[in-house]
């Protein structure tokens, strides 16, 4: 054992330098030089340069004039420093109660239409940026009404945002909620109710 201790110690030291420092730093260097947008989190900024969010990370929407993402189990909802699923088993009472409550609210909003499953279930990450196209269409009447916008135009916005599966079968059709809501804001601006200007 002792004769093997030197190679064990030395090789671990060399591996640490090579794989623990040189490798991630080299990848970081290449990434920052070649793909800075992705490497820094695919951040989206407003006209003033302030970070609105990440194109890849879902954020919480609760107002009627926005499309809502899925229920989230990350922290208090869409906490991008605490990703998590609910981890509830299929027969968990809390899960059943939660889905029933959420579904009842949605049914009141748009009666007679089948509620898409992703509208009442939490995602695996709690940060799912997407909803199904069916979920967006389900919410379209509410959003159109809240914005005073023609329903047909809101639906056209939805269809323009649908991302289809790769080659028709890899992945699922989906809509990025933040992108859809930004398109909505651009097309049908709401007069923002600003807090004191000094808030920033």
């Amino acid at each position: 054992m002792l004769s093997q201790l030197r190679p064990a110690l030395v090789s671990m030291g060399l591996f640490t330098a090579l794989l623990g420092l040189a490798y991630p730093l080299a990848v970081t260097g290449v990434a920052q030089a070649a793909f800075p947008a992705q490497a820094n989190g695919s951040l989206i900024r407003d006209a003033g340069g302030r970070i609105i969010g990440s194109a890849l990370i879902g954020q919480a929407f609760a107002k009627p004039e926005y499309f809502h993402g899925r229920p989230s189990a990350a922290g208090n909802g869409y906490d991008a420093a605490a990703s998590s699923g609910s981890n509830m088993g299929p027969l968990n009472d809390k899960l059943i109660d939660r889905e029933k409550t959420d579904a009842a609210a949605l049914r009141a909003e748009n009666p007679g239409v089948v509620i898409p499953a992703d509208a009442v279930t939490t995602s695996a990450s709690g940060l799912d940026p997407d909803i199904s196209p069916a979920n967006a269409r389900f919410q379209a009447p509410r959003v159109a009404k809240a914005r005073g916008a023609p329903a047909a135009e809101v639906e056209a916005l939805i269809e323009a945002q649908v991302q289809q599966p790769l080659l028709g079968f890899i992945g699922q059709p989906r809509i990025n909620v933040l992108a859809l809501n930004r398109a909505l804001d651009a097309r049908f601006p709401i007069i923002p109710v600003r807090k004191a200007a000094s808030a920033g």
Partner: protein
Amino acid sequence: MTWQGWAEIALTLSLAVAIGWPLGVFLSRVWNGEKTFLAPVMRPVETLFYKACGVDPTKSQSWHAYAVALLAFNLVGFVLVYAVLRLQGVLPLNPQGFSGLSGHLAFNTAFSFVTNTNWQSYAGEATMSTLSQMLVLTVQNFVSAATGATVAAALARAFVANRGEGVGNFWADLIRTTLYLLLPLAFVVAVVLVALGLPQTLAAGVTAHTLEGAEQKISLYAVASQEAIKMLGINGGGIFNANSAHPFENPTPLTNLITAVSINTLGWAAFFAFGRMVLAKKDVRALIIAAFVLLFAGAAGVYATETQAPPAQVAAKVDTSVNMEGKEVRFGAPATAAWVAMTTGASNGSVNGMHSSLMPLGGGIAMFLMQLGEILPGGIGSGVAIMVVMALLSVFVAGLMVGRTPEYLGKKVEAREIQFSILAVVIIPLSMLGFSGIAAVLPEALKGLMHSGPHGLSEILYAYVSGTANNGSAFAGLTANAPWWNVTLGIAMALGRFLPIVAVLAIAGSLVAKPKLAPTAGTLPTDGGLFIGLLIGVILILGGLQFFPAMALGPIVEHFQALGAVAALR
């Protein structure tokens, strides 16, 4: 279920085999010490390693010396990981300002990463500094994978030798596998993943001001560099708590395809490499077919369960075509089902959907695939090694039936090989069921459960199955960051890793000294359909039967409860 779904599953699973073939050819050259196209870059680094370590890479070691070297290297790795994690708070590159880990958590995490398990009792973005992620966890992602690979290389040499002595040089196998295969491949995949959206930064994160005017803190890491080796090395420990479901680890269907294929491709490559070294391509093809059949059946089973009506969605009267709890919209049922099978069939343990929220039999299949011993295709090398053990047991069973001394790949299989084979496979149920049995009656352990009843038992069983099998995925309702869970799971991971490795090396040591026999008319052919059937039977009996009572009380009874609940609601 749709044809698109089946096509996605079939493509993902078979692409891993297809890419594994050329990589396996390359890997056999690496293990044989041949010159590769990477020599101009890597040869000087390799030489530096040998010189600094004071080892002669051409000196073949006895199985005993090989095992001692392997254990010494892993012991040093364990101590280093433990020390860095404990001292994290005072070490540099800690922009998150995290403090050191508790003793039991550092113990668990150190064994977890050294054993290629990557069980995580912690949430990455709330625990680990950038330095810890890079300096110890990324390093172990490489070298624990290479450690597993050395075992297959040694076993292959034992089958090749004719009255030989040594099984190869551990240091050469470890260093060459890392430098020529893992590091270059990980670098390429990491850069591709960044291009497709994975972050790679030393910053700790940013604060966004959302459209609705709230603040959202977004954690960032050097994600891509660890993600690449996390998948290729069949490790599975994510940067983030949500693992490969997190959009920063796996943002699109394309990254999902690339990373899912990465889970299995080097496991298959080790099968191909083993076959080339032993000059037994047809026999190894039989092993691959047996493994692939079981793996595909697992993926198909999960796809079927996840498109059953989930009780909660029936109760809420919403669409019931897919169980969407714990799944991401961009992946849906098929991509999640393929991943569940691939991550549990290999000893990966990453997840792109939450296993605890799978339908009862979906979670049961995940457990079952791990109980088979991580051979579908398992870790790099460790998978094919245990698969060969299964083949030894299969020819032994066949030999008993006809009363002949069994042979495999030109070597007589006798008492010593069978004793060590049994040792390699018996420790797995012993640890899985033994620890689960104790935990199921221990108040200290039960405190960590999220569920009671069958799903609670599944949380316990899943944890020890995953730990012992060196998988690392979880029914994550379990709060495992407590002394009982951290310590016992740490022990389970070490038992499940090092006892089978030593047993396989002992088999190699015994086989290497034997003469290489030419097949005779009495030799059982081990490359045909009959043998594949026999092998699948042995794998299912060893894996399935002994766990059946425990599984009956967990996922199976929960399945019938779910059926009953759905029937009552409708």
